[in-house]
């Protein structure tokens, strides 16, 4: 599921702050483990949002007809709203439905905050780990190796570019194999066409996080130590700062700013996730045939050429009333080639289930992108998204890191010093050690 970097809903933040002071997780006895052999019957309720809810409503009625005696009710709770409902429901230990949607970025936070809040999905999809996007599997699992959120769709990142601007500057997109190549190209584009290289919202810190994950690093390592001042992080921040110093970045505000800048044709390239295709075709149909997609430039010539931004999964709260039917529906929907492909075709949800990506649909040329096979590129890259580690302090650290990115990129502070400072700040706030 696509993710826009929106501020955490205020109520959810306040709830989280209050909960931080309380001991224990959700109330209630631990649920019985899911039994994949159990006969499924009865009804379940599913909370989802946007096109994901549309997809589940459609597949829900198909499931009902192939599994007589079942009823699937899907409620669109809204994407902005969902987390307030989830936080309160997990904390109260009641009121949640049988299945909920959670974005991959948020999953680690909920898993660590409510360790007993989720049913273990290992009995139903555990044997299919190799079939899923590895970065999402690790983000959706807990420390004991239990898979708690079934990966649904991936936010595989590629480099969208304006083919007309690149052609005018005489640049072959295939030659952009490293970020350094891209910076050189950016200067050429700026001098020939007058356009900036990228339009990004510096203050969200999203581009920096994306560059970190591309290098296989998160804000913390697998031992829970702080890694925001690591050489890789310094490299990413230095790169961003260098781009801005050369006047290659147009700093825009939030989601609307990114869409507007793209529609206005302000910049030549957009490092965005696969779901950005939906934004392009929906909001700027007049720009058809002006975009192409290539792999993200690498940090080294042999480094990873993709990252992750967004995506979501389905989880079964341990308070679910009909966990066996819920598990059956989740596995039927997500760990299944036909259904995953149908959601890509109909609702534009890009599968995290790798066998689905072998479907001929992903080999089709896309007329919006001048006949380029864009989904083939994303399908190839999805299995290569580097996995990173998460802790319960990710949300807290993310805000501090975003401030540091602004301090360095916009206000010119030294990247190494800025990141050292923010690492200390995170260490003070969380009591965690800084990795060597």
């Amino acid at each position, binding site marked *: *599921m*696509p*993710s*826009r970097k929106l501020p955490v809903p205020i*109520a959810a933040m*306040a*709830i989280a702050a*209050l909960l931080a002071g309380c001991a224990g997780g959700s109330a209630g006895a631990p649920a019985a483990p899911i039994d994949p052999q159990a006969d499924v019957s009865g009804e379940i*309720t599913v*909370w989802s*949002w*946007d*096109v*994901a809810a549309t997809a589940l409503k459609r597949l829900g009625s198909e499931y009902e007809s192939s599994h007589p005696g079942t009823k699937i009710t899907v*409620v*669109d*709770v*809204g*994407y*902005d*709203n969902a987390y*307030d*409902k989830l936080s*309160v*429901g997990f*904390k*109260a*230990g*009641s*009121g949640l*439905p049988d299945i909920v949607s959670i974005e991959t970025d948020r999953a680690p936070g909920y898993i660590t905050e409510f360790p007993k809040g989720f049913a273990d999905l290992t009995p139903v999809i555990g044997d299919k780990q190799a079939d899923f996007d590895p970065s999402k599997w690790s983000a959706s699992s807990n420390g004991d190796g239990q898979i708690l959120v079934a990966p649904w769709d991936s936010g595989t990142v590629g480099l969208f570019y304006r083919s007309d601007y690149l052609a005018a500057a005489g640049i072959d997109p295939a030659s952009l194999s490293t970020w350094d190549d891209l910076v050189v190209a950016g200067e050429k584009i700026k001098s020939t066409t007058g356009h900036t290289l990228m339009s990004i919202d510096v203050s969200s810190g999203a581009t920096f996080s994306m560059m970190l994950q591309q290098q296989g690093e998160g804000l913390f390592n697998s031992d829970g130590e702080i890694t925001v001042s690591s050489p890789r992080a310094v490299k990413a921040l230095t790169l961003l700062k260098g781009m801005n110093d050369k006047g290659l970045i147009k700093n825009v505000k939030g*989601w*609307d700013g990114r*869409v*507007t800048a793209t*529609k*206005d044709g302000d910049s030549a390239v957009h490092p965005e996730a696969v*779901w*950005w295709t*939906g*934004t392009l075709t*929906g*909001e*700027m*149909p007049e720009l058809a045939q002006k975009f192409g997609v290539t792999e993200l430039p690498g940090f080294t010539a042999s480094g990873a050429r993709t990252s992750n931004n*967004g995506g979501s999964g389905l989880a079964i709260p341990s308070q679910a009333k009909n966990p066996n039917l819920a598990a059956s529906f989740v596995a039927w929907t997500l760990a299944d080639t036909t259904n995953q492909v149908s959601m890509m075709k109909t609702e*534009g949800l890009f599968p995290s289930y790798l066998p689905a990506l072998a479907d001929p649909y992903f080999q089709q040329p896309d007329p919006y992108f001048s006949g380029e096979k864009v989904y083939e590129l994303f399908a190839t890259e999805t299995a290569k998204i580097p996995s990173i580690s998460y802790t319960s302090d990710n949300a807290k650290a993310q805000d501090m890191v975003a401030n540091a990115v602004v301090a360095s990129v916009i206000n010119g502070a030294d990247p190494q010093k800025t990141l050292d400072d923010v690492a200390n700040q995170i260490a003070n706030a969380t009591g965690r050690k800084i990795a060597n």
Partner: protein
Amino acid sequence: MTRSQDATRLGASLRHAPIYLVLLVGSIISLIPFLWMVVASTHRTSDLFGTPLPVLPGGELLTNLARLQEDVNFGRVMINSLAVAIVYTAFSSIVSIMAGYGLAKFSFRGRNVAFGLILVTMMIPMQVLLVPLFQMMASIGWIDSYQAVILPFVASAFGIFLMRQSFLDFPDSLIESARIDGANEFRTFYRIVLPVAKPQIAALIIYTFMTQWNSFIWPLLMLNTEDNYTVPVALNTMIGLSRVDYSGLMLGSLLATLPLLILFLIFQRQFIAGLLGGAVKG
């Protein structure tokens, strides 16, 4: 009319000119968001990105309206919202008026403590209440029902405070003479006190209705069926992940301000009557 009178009037107008200028600028600033709502709700969302932005209304109003109805069943959620807000306003106003009157005009043991306690509840942030209230509603089995949306907030501390303050000014002698004339307590309240308090009650009703009409987080937590949603909850589901339906949102928000506008127009007479009544009778 003499020349000197004309000159005086002209002088007065000139003196007032800067005030009118400030008022003009102020009203333009406050009207622009509404104007933008009208413009935005008549265009396609894709026209609302990009530069320059449209300034004149477009021709997509009916398409947007149809989509609004299709996506969130807008007619239904408007009726839901109206029903919830009207029922809430009726009950909450009765509680506020009666409690305010009691606290202002009756002496009883613990009156100040009771009033103090009511005021203290205003200082508890909503976020603290959410989880315990949610558990309470869940254990009664009221999740996804309108009584769960309405009842927890029927006693409004601010409403009680507002009515108590306005009844404090009401002359005791009037109440006493009504009692001496043989009116019972309820009759005194209903026939003597209430008519005089009409302007304040109008203010209370507008405030109460608006609070419920705009209320978001609590209805969001309580309502789990799309057909039961209130307007703010339903409109929020239109914010998608890779696309936001701004024109639909703007149209929905525009239509959602209409009931408030109508309510204000209805009670505006009460406001003015109250103000004039005070001015003439002294």
